[in-house]
């Protein structure tokens, strides 16, 4: 006798006898869309928002969430209610969504734990992207707790819906299906999206890391419906206190990946960044590159000199090459001839051109190299007259000072430079 599957409110139906009558491919596609496709898309809206608003940059991230995730909050319950009323197929995912929603909690947690175990082997600080997620959604600065917290929520949401998508798409949640979809397919998407659409270093170990974590995510996605949520497992826990202890343990395990990251940020990342930032501040110099040169003599004499700032490049805690940013730069100075001031110099530059806001890897890395040293001009004005006219054997001496806000990965510092020439 064929095994049967029941769903409350639906007639019993044999799984093995469920041979569908012939239908056209259009009808099959329509049926698939109604049973799996629409539900899949509605549950994947956080991923769609990330693609549009973060990786591809078609929209800003808040707008992407507004036009995808927010409508899904209305459409998803409406669609579930509609299909639950109309569907006569007990295998249709909509009848099992409550179970799938529970199953999908675990794979992401194991994915996180696998990455943490992998961290000790390949040392990829994988949570660095969480700051960027949070920054693009909330505008909070990267490498600070507010962007880390919001980024953690976004990343958890992505992991959750990706696992949920597996349960919705497939009728049978077998090991083979989990390996093909969660391990191979999702690892491939990950390996494609990041290097082409997100600025970060991508050594070989990055790919190992991605495939390693998705492998364990796949194993968990397969294992969870069989064991973890199996009533037989819970029936072993006879007393209420045993069940409470088990539930507490599960909550603790769920919190572990996040707690580990926050601890790493406080105990390793922030001190490492402090060292990197201070070294970058100490290396950066401002030097006279050219001039002063008389460029104009009308009612006043105008001189110009060029200052060069750099080296700006440093590697952040992930190994990514970045350039020091600068806040407002003020340059003041004067030109002297025989000890007498003949011109006064000043310049104000709101900020130097920076590669750090570039989000496309193809444009980012050349820009970092090109902006390692930045030149900027300062003009000096003085009265026109015999005292300013260059005479034989004359030398003009420049004295200048520059103040600026130096901005590295996490810290900023006032920089004061001076020189003469």
């Amino acid at each position: 006798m064929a095994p049967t599957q029941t769903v409350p409110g639906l007639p019993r139906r044999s799984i093995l006898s469920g041979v569908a009558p012939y239908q056209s491919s259009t009808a099959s596609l329509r049926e698939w869309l109604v049973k799996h496709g629409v539900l899949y898309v509605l549950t994947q809206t956080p991923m769609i928002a990330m693609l549009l608003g973060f990786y591809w940059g078609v929209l800003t991230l808040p707008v992407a969430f507004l036009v995808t995730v927010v409508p899904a909050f209305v459409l998803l319950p409406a669609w579930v209610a509609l299909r639950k009323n109309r569907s006569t197929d007990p295998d249709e995912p909509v009848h099992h969504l409550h179970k799938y929603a529970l199953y999908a909690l675990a794979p992401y947690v194991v994915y996180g734990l696998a990455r943490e175990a992998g961290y000790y082997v390949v040392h990829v600080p994988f949570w660095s992207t969480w700051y960027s997620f949070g920054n693009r959604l909330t505008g909070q600065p990267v490498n600070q707790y507010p962007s880390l917290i919001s980024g953690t929520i976004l990343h958890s949401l992505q992991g959750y819906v990706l696992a949920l998508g597996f349960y919705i798409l497939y009728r049978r949640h077998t090991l083979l299906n989990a390996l093909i979809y969660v391990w191979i397919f999702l690892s491939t998407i990950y390996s494609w999206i990041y290097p082409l659409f997100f600025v970060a270093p991508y050594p070989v170990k990055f790919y190992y890391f991605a495939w390693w974590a998705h492998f364990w995510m796949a194993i968990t996605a397969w294992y969870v419906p069989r064991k973890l949520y199996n009533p037989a497992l819970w029936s072993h826990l006879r007393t209420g206190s045993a069940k409470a202890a088990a539930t507490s343990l599960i909550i603790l395990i769920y919190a572990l990946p996040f707690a580990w990251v926050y601890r790493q940020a406080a105990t390793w990342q922030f001190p490492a960044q402090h060292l990197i930032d201070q070294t970058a501040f100490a290396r950066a110099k401002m030097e006279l590159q050219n001039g002063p040169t008389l460029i104009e003599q009308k009612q006043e004499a105008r001189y110009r000199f060029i200052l060069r700032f750099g080296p700006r490049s440093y590697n952040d805690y992930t190994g990514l090459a970045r350039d020091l940013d600068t806040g407002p730069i003020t340059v003041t100075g004067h030109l002297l001839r025989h000890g007498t001031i003949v011109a006064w110099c000043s310049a104000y530059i709101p900020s130097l051109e920076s590669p750090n806001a570039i989000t496309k890897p193809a444009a980012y890395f050349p820009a970092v190299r090109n902006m390692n040293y930045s030149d900027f001009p300062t003009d000096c004005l003085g009265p026109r007259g015999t005292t300013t006219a260059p005479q034989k054997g004359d030398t003009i001496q420049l004295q200048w000072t520059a103040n600026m806000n130096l901005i590295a990965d996490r810290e900023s510092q006032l920089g004061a430079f001076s020189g003469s020439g």
Partner: protein
Amino acid sequence: MTTNDFLTHLGAAIVTTLIAVYTLKTVGFDAYSALFIVVPAVMVLLALLGRKFPKINEW
């Protein structure tokens, strides 16, 4: 393997094939883009194995 699951794997393989085409066009052929050529083939092969030998897909 059910028809639904088999066709879903094929759909995922088509997505990775499109990724392979995009990657070949943007970064050219190298070890990185080769990954996206190999992956859909492996996915289809595994799905075919699961279809041909149902025991593999019983776990």
